[in-house]
């Protein structure tokens, strides 16, 4: 399926938000937040959040002192 990650189209087979963030290599970073179609999804719900074709995902990382 094709989703949008931070305004860029991306083909993925990740069925959930957790799987997609794993694919992006940011799933285990502590200062990451994600929103699906404009709704912020708490980390505790990443595994339950299903992705569909056309879903728009926002991923952002805090500076953490940088």
């Amino acid at each position: 399926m094709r989703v949008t990650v931070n305004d860029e189209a991306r083909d993925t087979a990740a069925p959930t938000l957790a799987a997609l963030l794993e694919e992006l290599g940011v799933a285990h970073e502590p200062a990451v937040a994600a929103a699906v179609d404009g709704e912020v999804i708490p980390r505790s719900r990443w595994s339950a959040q299903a992705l569909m074709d056309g879903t728009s995902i926002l991923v952002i990382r805090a500076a953490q002192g940088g």
Partner: protein
Amino acid sequence: MLKFIKELFVPSPEAPAPDSLVLFTPNDGSWNVKQVRRLFDAGVGRLHVQYRRDWQLKDYEDFLKNIPETFWPRIVLEDQPELVLSCKLGGLQIHPTERVPRRWPKHGVLSAKCHSYDELLAVDKSCRYVFLTPIFESVSKKDHRPRRTVREYAVILERWKSEGGCPAYALGGITPENIGEVREMGFDGAAFIGSVWKEKDPVRAFLDLERAWSGRDARKLKRKY
């Protein structure tokens, strides 16, 4: 009725100072929430809570519990982006190489801090504002000196702006004595750490900085400080 009488004796907060004057908290335990409350009451318009290695989510939540919600939109974090979004805080400081998503919520202003010209070049110009540091020798950190001259910073800013860069704020060693120079260099705002927190009265110190920056356009205050 009792609530009404009580409210009569609680001074209402001052109007906010320009949010281009940013106060950073120190990144250690040398400040407290009572001071922050007083600073907000006196009109601090934007507070960046610096990242602390010893703080977990609960520490940020406890901090927020002690700050009236009316001030939350003035608070920016360098950590806990979920908290920024769920509590509708004022913003999030991102890494200079991070991109700004177009659909990011408007309340969560994104900013970045750059320690060099190379870092500035990497910043997404659609950040709401960017800090450039250190401009002068740091008040709070020994041996934290600027790598560029005042003239070089002015040239950097001119180029940054001509390329459509977002507003740039000076950070590092800003005092009431040199804040005029910051304006002359072309900065759109200034940020403070040691020049406020190292002073005996941080509220007074912030107001002195604000007055020095604003000059005749300074805010009219309801109370004397």
